[in-house]
């Protein structure tokens, strides 16, 4: 299963990428699976997505704090708390 992952602001800068397609091996993929797979890359990934860090998750352009089930083609965005206005 393939999903799209987007990074914004500080995460985009630190990871050096704004967007990537991610292949998920497991059949049941949740937000937590995506985060685990990204953390497994170690280095800045493990660091910035660590439990002590505050970042937000949006699925298909809607913020959520739930560990929702994802489906093929979903757009998952990871970003710092927003600071507009």
């Amino acid at each position, binding site marked *: 299963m393939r999903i799209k992952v*987007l990074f*914004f*602001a*500080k995460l*985009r800068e630190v990871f050096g990428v704004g967007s990537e397609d991610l292949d998920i091996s497991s059949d049941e993929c949740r937000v937590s699976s995506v985060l685990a797979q990204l953390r497994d890359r170690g280095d800045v990934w493990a660091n910035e997505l660590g439990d002590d860090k505050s970042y937000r998750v*949006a699925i298909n*352009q*809607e*913020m959520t704090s739930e560990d929702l089930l994802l489906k093929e083609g979903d757009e998952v*965005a990871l*970003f*710092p*708390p*927003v*600071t*507009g*206005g």
Partner: protein
Amino acid sequence: MSSVRVQTEDFDVSAEMLTLRKRNPKIGAVASFVGVVRDLNDGDSVSTLTLEHYPGMTEKSLEAIVQQAKERWDIYDALIVHRVGTMRPLDQIVLVIVTSAHRGESFQACEFLMDYLKTRAPFWKKEVTPEGERWVDARSSDDVAAKRWEQAK
């Protein structure tokens, strides 16, 4: 006409108000808010401020916030214009305008829109100071301001 806009260009408050008002001679109240780039933030002087956003989600989230305001208060219309890109101190960043028959509703809805926008719309500020570039931290006072509207009503 959409009630939210994300743009790099500056905006003119009078012109935007006139556009909103022209549509309805029953409007008696127009409340508005303009956010401006300050030359000082967290003790450091700011030379430029760059706004990044999440195209698509930004417009959706702003439209959802406007919809909530319209459901909650007896208002006629609401407009949000938010700039992105690089700005300097004294530049306008964001504009919110609300129209209604009487002033209480406009004031409340306008403040609600700003509080929700600050905590829910995907914008991020990066500022350049003599110390270098830095991403602006979210303020807990903004979370507190947004939470008020969940209890109130």
